[in-house]
């Protein structure tokens, strides 16, 4: 679980090196990390290109819509996860929170069929945020490792879901038509869900990039002790990150209910590792301090597109997961190479007294 120290520091120091002094060194570093995101975008483009050359139907409007629809929920989860991971934490409970909120949304409509859609979604975000707040409070106040706490809460939330559902399944017929159509309908040919995901990505991206507390998350992830000594309220920031991540999982849960219409207590099982994988493929360092939500969103999009592409290319669908695994390994290998180059470059500069 421990990365090689010098390189990891070089890599993690990058985003915090940004304010004020934009000297050559930081510009180089920034460029390199933009390259990282362009890299995933290029991989995604190449995948789409190859698939499209083989079967032009892949670029048809319905096909693109399917891919975007499939990716939206994973993108939202990956954004929340990124906010937590950059602060050198992790939230493994997102799959369970998604499942719990999806079921709660269905229950809400069963109990009060007239609930406005916006209110139902807000309720979902709220419930998710409460789950996130429990995770955050345990991590920040009891000061215990996030991996352990959220692994425990993964089971707790899932168990609560099961105890509540008692084997019940909620069907599309139990939910208002307007809510369900939001899950599949399109605006200008683009799924509504994709617009929501895009809005989430942009807002979170702006927050992490330009707001003080967003920058502080990177500082905490780079070196928690230094962050604490420099007066950053580490506990409060980490707590906030978990609330955001829970809220995003809640939003994803409500959207899941709208999109699939059929919900039981097993919804979202095993999703947590896929979400972490999307963030890692997107260049978010697993031990915090670097990475962006744009990268994570591209990672989620890439993982979803692979599934569709393989099917279109008539490759045995059983290969999909193996390819995803290979991609994760390639992505972290690439990050390591980039980090080494950054470290060398920084070393070179400082030895010349720059």
């Amino acid at each position, binding site marked *: 679980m421990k990365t090689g120290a010098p390189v990891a520091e070089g890599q993690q120091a990058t985003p915090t090196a940004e304010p004020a002094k934009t000297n050559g060194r930081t510009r180089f570093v920034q460029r390199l990390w933009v390259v990282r995101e362009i890299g995933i975008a290029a991989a995604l483009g190449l995948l789409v290109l190859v698939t499209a050359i083989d079967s032009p139907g892949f670029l048809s409007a319905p096909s693109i819509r399917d891919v975007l629809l499939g990716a939206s929920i994973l993108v939202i989860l990956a954004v929340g996860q990124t906010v937590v991971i950059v602060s050198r934490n992790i939230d493994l409970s997102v799959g369970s929170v998604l499942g719990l909120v999806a079921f709660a949304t269905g229950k809400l409509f069963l109990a009060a069929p007239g609930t406005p859609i916006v209110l139902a979604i807000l309720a979902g975000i709220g419930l998710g945020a409460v789950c996130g707040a429990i995770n955050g409070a345990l991590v920040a106040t009891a000061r215990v*490792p996030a991996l352990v706490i959220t692994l425990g809460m993964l089971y707790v939330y899932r168990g*609560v879901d099961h105890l509540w559902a008692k084997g019940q399944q909620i069907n599309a017929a139990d939910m208002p038509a307007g809510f369900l159509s939001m899950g599949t309908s399109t605006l200008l040919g683009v799924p509504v869900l994709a617009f929501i995901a895009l809005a989430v990505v942009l807002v979170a991206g702006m927050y992490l990039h330009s707001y003080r507390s967003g920058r502080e998350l990177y500082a905490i992830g780079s070196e928690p002790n230094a962050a604490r000594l420099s007066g950053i309220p580490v506990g409060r920031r980490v707590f906030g990150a978990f609330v955001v991540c829970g809220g995003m999982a809640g939003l994803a849960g409500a959207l899941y209910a709208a999109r699939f219409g059929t919900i039981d207590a097993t919804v979202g099982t095993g999703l947590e590792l896929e979400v972490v994988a999307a963030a890692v493929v997107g260049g978010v360092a697993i*031990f915090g301090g670097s990475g962006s939500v744009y990268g994570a969103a591209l990672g989620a999009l890439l993982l979803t597109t692979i599934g569709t592409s393989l099917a279109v290319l008539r490759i045995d669908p059983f290969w999909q997961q193996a390819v995803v*695994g*290979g991609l994760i390994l390639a992505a*972290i290998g690439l990050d390591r190479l980039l980090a080494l180059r950054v470290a060398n470059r920084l070393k070179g500069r400082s030895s010349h007294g720059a």
Partner: protein
Amino acid sequence: MAHDSLYAQPEAPAERAEAHAWWRTALTRWDTVIVVVLAAVVVVASLSIDGFASTGNAQFLLLDVVPIALIALPLTLIIITGEIDLSVASTLGLCSAVMGQLWLTGLPLEVIVVLVVLLGGLLGAVNGVFVTRFGLPALAVTIGTLAAYRGLAYVVLGDRAVADFPYDWTAASLSTVAGGSLPWAMVMVLLLACAFGVVLHVTPFGRKLYAMGNNAEAASFAGVSVATAKFWLFVTSGAVSGLAGVFWTLRFASARADNAFALELAVVAAVLLGGVSIFGGRGALLGVLAGVLLLGTVRNALQLADVSSEALYVVTGSLLVASVVVPNVVGMARSWLRRRRRAAPA
């Protein structure tokens, strides 16, 4: 180093440690606590739940915990060195799928078992190379191989199941010592546990594992070959997961690509519940075995008591959260009391 400073440890309780008698230290150790809890659960369940204490039930309880107990042994060592292996369940699945495919080709089962365990070791070696040679974080690497190995299992066997294993082999996987309730498979686990226990707690190599977990850099300056040790731990983890795959396949008489799907988090939960620190450097094998048995016993008792098996999720999760929160809160409360006592005039 990386992330160990992340969740500040409770302010060092060490200063007063020497004031405690050895028996007080022993009684407040986490593995002792968990053994006592396990004993209490067994006693209460035997007294209050019909059929819990029967020979047959004990046999199935023990059979159920064998795969988790097996995989938990090497995983304990890996976590003590500060690494993690999340690919164990996928390794089990891939080994099971390959076992089925090889059986279809008509190889004798003795040969297949050896090959499958070797394959497990090889899969572990891949993890080891990524972590120790390329210096990549084990958490990310093994999430990658978790997906990759499970994917390869599907590539090998698709969604088919191979079920026509010879009866003497499948029966052997269930057989018990003298027809009692102790399965031979559990005996194998206990023998392996003794071997791992000796390596971890008696040999210098074991001490080095703790040293690595506490501070890999310092350990390597002190002449410990960190990379080599970690590499072989990953190989061991893979091989034991392969062995667990053989047992799983025979026990359920079914080789499938989705065998033991998502078991990795259950194993990690059992190890952490057993008192092993996720940051490495702390933990004991006895506590882990007790943790594995505790989870298995609670599940079994709940099922017999007709509590929906889903309630187990809540119990597992709460136990895990409590296992890290309670000692920390107690530690914080102690240091707060100490500070108050010091601040008060004598």
